[in-house]
Each structure stands twice: as structure tokens, then as C-alpha cells.
């Protein structure tokens, strides 16, 4: 006989509200029904009242963690409509902003994850290190959460020599700290007992389920938007895709840790190659046509669709966020999992519900 147990919308491991109706048989999940709608804000409708430049600021507010990458992706989508090439320096500044976002997002997730399996001191460590990156972003952009670093046509702020030195010093200090927490996540006996072999998705299943980001790469699929033609700059910076083949909670964790190191490397390389020059191109007129732009956020691929009709307002903005792509994978990962392990599996998709519902 099965019992239905609600998981959420308010739950200690969930920073944002989402509900799962879990069908349980003898302490094991046999069915899942996700419910959304607790934080739907209608942002795709709200942009009807904003012009295409103001819409960038709305897009940044889709998420409080990867706000910078939302702004950058939207800007690039509209730049496609205008067919404009932004200055090279602006492209590098966008990479630096994006990768710093990824580092603090992954440290945030590692902390939440540690908290989820009851390792409080590890949670404190991760969040303490994350603060260093947030301080950096505050000095660099003026804000901890909403950076407004990007605009249609390029970057809205430049980096000074002092700021560049601060970034490099912070990353030099951060790297050994990440190595310390990596040892615990990867080698600790108790942590491994909780994560290895849990919430397994095979390579093919993860791909067919339309997952994105570390959820997809943790199952051995080397899919990362930073490898696409739209993001050639990453190839110049020596980007390498992080993958793990286990397909379990342990594999998804290792992907995120590897990505922190990769992001540190990318920021250093971007700074070493940062060209002089302008940071923005002037964009004139109103957008027409339609464009799709993708970017790799910390949680995975985000997709922006924009359609302009020659007026100052966009006719349509559609945003598909990575958690939106990853929620259906819970229908495949959770059956067979014990009730006590459900929070761990749910956390490994790094759910961002504000993003999902917009």
C-alpha cells in the first residue's frame, strides 16, 4: 500500500518554495508529482511596459544568484537582432563577470548541499569562502546580487588596474580554500556513503530527459554552451568541459567542484588577455526580427528568445532557465530512492525556483 507525502513547499533544505507529492511504498519513493506556482511573477508579461534597454534590468532580476549571466545573455540576444559586434574588451569583461558568478553560485550550492546532509561546519566554510567572491563583485560592480555589468552593446562598467589586482589576489587566496573543502566532499567516508550510487541517471537517460548543466555533465555528457560558436571567446581562453561518468549525486558534486577551478582559470586567462579599448558600441534604432541566444549558467543552459517588431518594446521575450529543464529529471531520479535521501537528490539539480517560474 502506498502513502502520499508532501515534500515542500516549505522544507529545511529548500531555499525557495517548490512542492513534490511523493508516493511512498515501504519508505521508498515509487512516484513523484512536482507542483510549481509559488513564486511566479509574470516577468515575460511585465516587459510589455519596458523598452528593450530597461528589459535587461528585468532579466537580471529573474535570479538572485546568476543575475549577471541573465543580463549578459539577454544583451547578446538583442545584439543578435541588431547584428552588432561588441568591443573585444567587453566580451572579456562579460566572461570575468560570468565566471565569478559561477564560482559564488557553486560555493553557495556546496554549502546548501552540505547543510542538506547535516554537515554544518562544511556549510559554514563554503559560505565563508563565497563571501570573498561576493565582496569582489561588490567592489567590481557596486552590488553583491544585481550587477548590471552588461548592457545592449557591451559592458556598462570597466575594470581598473586596482580592481584587477584585487580579483587576482582573491582568486589566489580562494584556490587553496577550495582544495580544502574538495577533500571533504570527495574523500570523506560519511559524505561518500551518502552520495555514491544515489539518484543515478545514465548518460542516455540524462540526455533524453533534456537535462542541463552539471546534472547533464554529471552523467557523462560533455554538453556545455561555452563550447558553442556563440562563445568562441571561451575556446581562446582554454576552456575545458568538466564531466563525470557516475551519474549520481557524487558525480554531480564533483562536476561543480571542477567547474570552480575551471572558472578560476578562465578569469585569470581573461585578465591576462584583457585587451585595451572601448567597452561598448552605441546601438541605435529599435530591434526587429527574432533571435535565440544560449549561455551556460551555473545550473546549466539558459535559453533566451527575443522578438522585435521595430518599436522600443520587444514583442516577445521567452526565457527557459536550467532548473526548468532539470525538474522533469526528478521524475526519473527519485523513484527507488529512500524518503530520507530525497532532499539530497533534489538538491543535486541545484533547484532555482525563482528562475524556473520567472
Amino acid at each position, binding site marked *: 500500500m502506498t502513502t502520499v507525502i508532501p515534500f515542500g513547499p516549505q522544507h529545511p533544505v529548500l531555499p525557495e518554495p517548490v512542492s513534490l507529492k511523493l508516493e511512498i511504498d515501504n519508505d521508498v519513493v515509487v512516484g513523484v508529482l512536482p507542483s510549481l506556482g509559488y513564486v511566479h511573477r509574470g516577468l515575460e508579461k511585465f516587459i510589455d511596459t519596458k523598452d528593450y534597454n530597461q528589459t535587461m534590468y528585468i532579466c537580471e532580476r529573474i535570479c538572485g544568484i546568476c543575475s549577471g549571466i541573465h543580463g549578459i545573455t539577454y544583451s547578446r540576444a538583442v545584439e543578435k*537582432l541588431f547584428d552588432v559586434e561588441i568591443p573585444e574588451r567587453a566580451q572579456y569583461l562579460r566572461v570575468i563577470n560570468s565566471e565569478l558568478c559561477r564560482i559564488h553560485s557553486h560555493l553557495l550550492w556546496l554549502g546548501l548541499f552540505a547543510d542538506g546532509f547535516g554537515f554544518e561546519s562544511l556549510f559554514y566554510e563554503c559560505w565563508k569562502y563565497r563571501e570573498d567572491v561576493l565582496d569582489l563583485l561588490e567592489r567590481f560592480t557596486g552590488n553583491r546580487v544585481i550587477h548590471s555589468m552588461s548592457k545592449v552593446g557591451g559592458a556598462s562598467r570597466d575594470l581598473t588596474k586596482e580592481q584587477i589586482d584585487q580579483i587576482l589576489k582573491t582568486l589566489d587566496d580562494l584556490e587553496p580554500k577550495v582544495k580544502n573543502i574538495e577533500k571533504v566532499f570527495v574523500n570523506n567516508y560519511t559524505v561518500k556513503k551518502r552520495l555514491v550510487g544515489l539518484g543515478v541517471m545514465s548518460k542516455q537517460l540524462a*540526455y533524453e530527459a*533534456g537535462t542541463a548543466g552539471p546534472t547533464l555533465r554529471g552523467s557523462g555528457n560533455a554538453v556545455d554552451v561555452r*563550447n558553442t560558436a556563440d562563445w568562441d571567446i571561451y575556446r581562446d581562453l582554454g576552456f575545458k568541459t568538466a564531466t563525470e561518468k557516475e551519474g549520481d549525486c557524487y558525480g554531480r558534486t564533483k562536476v561543480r567542484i571542477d567547474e570552480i577551478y575551471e572558472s578560476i582559470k578562465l578569469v585569470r586567462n581573461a585578465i591576462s588577455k584583457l585587451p585595451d579599448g572601448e567597452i561598448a558600441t552605441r546601438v541605435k534604432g529599435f530591434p*526587429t526580427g527574432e533571435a535565440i541566444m544560449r549561455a551556460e549558467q551555473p545550473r546549466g543552459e539558459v*535559453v533566451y528568445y527575443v522578438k522585435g517588431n521595430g518599436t522600443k518594446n520587444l514583442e516577445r521575450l521567452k526565457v527557459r532557465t536550467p532548473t526548468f529543464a532539470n525538474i522533469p529529471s526528478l521524475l526519473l531520479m527519485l523513484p527507488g530512492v529512500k524518503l530520507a535521501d530525497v532532499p539530497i537528490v533534489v538538491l543535486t539539480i541545484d533547484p532555482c525556483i525563482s528562475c524556473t517560474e520567472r
Partner: protein
Amino acid sequence: MPDNVIQNITEIKSMPEVLKAVEGMKGDGYRYVTMICLKANEGHELIYVFEKDDKLKHLRYFVKPGEKPKSVSGIYLCALLIENEYQDLFGLTFEGLAIDYKGHLYLTPNSPKTPLA
């Protein structure tokens, strides 16, 4: 300025052809990315987006006024969320949805009806 900068887009004329094309995409190893819905000539336009080897491919289908498009969640399970979203926001009805929230994925009974329609 380009009128249309979406590459690799195929126009499809009927719903059975859409299902056949989507099945073909799955058979060819494409990952389902998302679907975009737009208002168009009293009806709606659906753009299905797929990815393989870091490249996107699109299918475009025009939904006539009053037409109920078929769900592709039987082919790609992950399509169920976006199809439910468009039931909420555009008032479309997808037939054969794997899980049907009946217009209440996001919206409550007191919410504005079909806000993007």
C-alpha cells in the same frame, strides 16, 4: 539588419507531421531544449527547439484558432512542463499531456486568466 536570425528552422504544416518530426529528432539523437509560443494571426506559433553537437535545430508550427495541438511529452517527457506553462499563459490545450495541470501549473483559480494570450 537580418529579418530572421534563427538558423536551421523547418516549417511544418500539420500536427501529425509535427509528431513525426519530433520522433525523428529523438531518433537522430537530439536533446529537447524547449518550445517557444507566440501569438500569430489569431492563432499561435510554436517553435520547438532541439540541440545536438552544440548546434540548435528548430521546428515551427502554426496553431490555428481553436486547434488543440498534440503534446510531445509522450516522446520527450521533459516537454510536459513547457506545454503546461502554455496552457496557463496562452490558454492552449495540449492533448495527451503526460501530466496535465489543467491550466494551474503557475496560476491559481483567482489569478488573471491566460495573461500572455
